[in-house]
């Protein structure tokens, strides 16, 4: 009786290994424990409504974290994404309120976001300012712009058609979740199956080697920071749809959530190590954890402590395991 069970569990383990890569086992286990624990303590956790809530809040961070994964993999950092979310949310709201077609407004907002990414790229690659400093600066500048164009208050979107990007559903699945899945798939495929993705690892792993093997590092940097800003803008547009307004205060601190998810997913801040499957797991763990704290009615102040501890524990486990290797 017991033998086939052992077999099937090792089979299960090896298929998990295949999907997420061997190093991700720890993360899958953490996520599994979180889900199992919450289900036991609060059965309402598994209700369809709560699961949809989890995926909805994962979508905001997940889309942003996908762009940030590329940045961190290449050895950079982008702290401006939270502000870009807010700025593009208010921008798209104001554009639509001028009577512009929703699709046009979205495309235009994404174009503005790519300009914001180019500004980051310009300072980091051309002027050679440290990425942390650059995006710390643009984080404040972009946030300021969001306040200025909106006069500091939420911009209510009059065109109800636009709400569908945030509130619509297809086969019962909310649009933001569908977009999130698309983003994850596209970013995963690019990272694991294209020359571009491979070269991200080379640049992050050994910049001098990348230079000596003919990779145009500056061009890559521009593309990476533009994609990070565009993903943040996409997330901001969806958030505006969900909230029926563009809010200049939105997504403050989201840049740190994104970095937390990426690092939880096993990425090294020094670059060259990380994966999209890791980021997916990082986003899910973070979101499930926060959802659990809410369901357990944990005081908001303690939630900060819990989230921070989660990150520290996860990276500690990772360091210890690496040392043993």
């Amino acid at each position, binding site marked *: 009786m017991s033998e086939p069970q052992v077999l099937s569990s090792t089979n299960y383990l090896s298929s998990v290994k295949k999907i997420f890569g061997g190093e991700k086992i720890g993360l899958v286990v953490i996520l599994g424990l979180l889900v199992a624990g919450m289900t036991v303590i609060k059965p309402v956790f598994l209700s369809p409504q709560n699961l949809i809530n989890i995926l909805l809040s994962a979508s905001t961070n997940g889309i942003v974290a996908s762009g940030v994964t590329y940045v961190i993999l290449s050895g950079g950092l982008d702290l401006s994404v939270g502000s870009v979310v807010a700025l593009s949310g208010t921008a798209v709201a104001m554009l639509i309120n001028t009577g512009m077609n929703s699709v046009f407004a979205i495309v235009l907002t994404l174009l503005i976001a790519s300009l914001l990414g180019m500004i980051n790229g310009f300072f980091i690659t051309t002027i050679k300012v440290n990425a942390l400093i650059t995006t710390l600066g643009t984080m404040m500048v972009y946030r300021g712009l969001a306040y200025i164009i909106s006069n500091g208050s939420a911009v209510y979107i009059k065109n109800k058609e636009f709400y569908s990007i945030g509130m619509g559903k297809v086969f019962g699945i909310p649009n933001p979740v569908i977009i999130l899945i698309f983003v994850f798939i596209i970013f995963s495929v690019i990272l694991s*199956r294209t*020359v571009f993705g491979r070269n991200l690892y080379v640049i992050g792993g050994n910049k001098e080697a990348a230079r*000596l093997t*003919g990779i*145009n590092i500056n061009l890559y940097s521009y593309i990476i920071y533009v994609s990070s800003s565009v993903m943040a803008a996409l997330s901001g547009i969806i958030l505006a749809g969900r909230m029926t307004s563009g809010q200049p205060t939105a997504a403050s601190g989201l840049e740190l959530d994104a970095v937390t998810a990426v690092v939880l997913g096993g990425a090294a801040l020094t670059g060259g190590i990380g994966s999209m499957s890791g980021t997916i797991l990082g986003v899910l763990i973070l979101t499930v954890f926060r959802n659990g704290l809410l369901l357990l009615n944990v005081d908001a102040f303690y939630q900060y402590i819990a989230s921070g501890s989660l990150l520290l524990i996860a990276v500690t486990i990772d360091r210890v395991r690496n040392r043993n290797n």
Partner: protein
Amino acid sequence: MSGSIVEFSRVSKNFPGVRALDNISFKANPGEVTAILGENGAGKSTLLKILNGDYIADTGIVILDGEPQHFHSPKDALDKGISIIYQERHIIPGLNVAENIFAGELPRKYGLVRWSELYLRTQDLIDRYDLKCTPKTILKDLSVAQQQMIEIVKDLNRNIKVIALDEPTASLSDKEIEILFDMIRTMRSEGKTIIYVSHRMNEVFKICDQATVLKDGCFVGKVPIKGNNEKSLVSMMVGREINEIFKYEKIPDNLHVVLEVKNLTNINLRNISFKLHESEVLGIAGLVGAGRSELAHAIFGADQVKKGSIEINGKKVIFRSTKDAIRSGIALCPEDRKHQALIMDRSVKENIIQVIINKISRIGFLNFQKEKAIAEDYRSRLDIRTSDIVKKVGELSGGNQQKVVLARWLASKPRIIILDEPTRGIDVGAKSEIYTIINELKKNHVSLILISSELPEILGVCDRIIVMKNGEISGELSREEATEMAVIELAMIDKNKGSE
């Protein structure tokens, strides 16, 4: 405070695969400047690090004034009055002269710094060693030589008895060197024990009293400078057997020129001109810092070129990036495989196909079958020993890592390969395999430039040798003319000697 007698007694030190020091014994006396001479890799730096407590000798001991010492860190050595001045500065550029000299032991009263006393004591030191500055001059406003002297004064101020200088003149101008030498003479007259490591023969004859010569980690001899000349010292550094592992095969004369460099000049190089022929292995010899790797980078489009031109098969080319050079059929296996070549956390396979990744992909998508086939092909051709090509390259031995770097560039099918220190830190077996690869490349009409600090390798493998010194070519030798003596003379001895 005067100096101490420093005695090395039967000091040996091994690193994995290398015997860096083999049973070294000699003495350095107070009131004398003792030079330590030897080629690259002779063991000079290791010896200084043992004196300084940075390394611990495997066997043997350092004796100070008859007392055996057991240093475990540079601080232990400093406490006994031993200081080493390295090429890199250890000053704090934003602080002034007084603060730098007294860093960590500023004169204090009730926990507050006594500035007036600090500046008075600093002025005394400035007068004593004739430094051209004031106590309040900020260090970054001083020249490199002055900064170096502040560093020395800082140590002298701490009752230093033994001072060792490692290539102190590497970044100094002639005038600055004179100022430094005056200071060394002052220290000598005060009775300090001074150890002077330098590649520059003329300086050794100017400032040193004794010369200790090392070769391949062994002690060759200690001789007084008076009564010797540059040639007699160089002859002590050479004399090895060239064995069979190089498998050299002569190439025919009059092969056509594939690469011609004319008057190449940039920040590190001056007027470099040479030709490289088909199937030829051109050796570039010279001391560390002579500009050999910088030349390789300039040819490869990795460093900017100010003046001069590069021609490939008679056609002038301009490389704006390494990509252009790769497209023209040039490959560069850089000196430092860990920092300049390999992506340690990625697989052997990915490292091998790195350069040709665009060629074997389909509209930007990776072709995993082709990647695998090519990587497997090079694994068997170069005998890269790894259980699997998806293993991280960082887990391989040094020799196998080097073969991965070679495989990466061979896969790009280059016509010219520049090998910068291809056998550094790898075992004899792997070395011999790399020589075999070089000879096979020759047969396939590939031209090679071999940069190496190992003289036997340069002499054994190359068809022709150019020697560099201070960013210039100091001479060219045919295989027949080339001896260790001839190469070292070109690499070390100045043609136009100083006045002394």
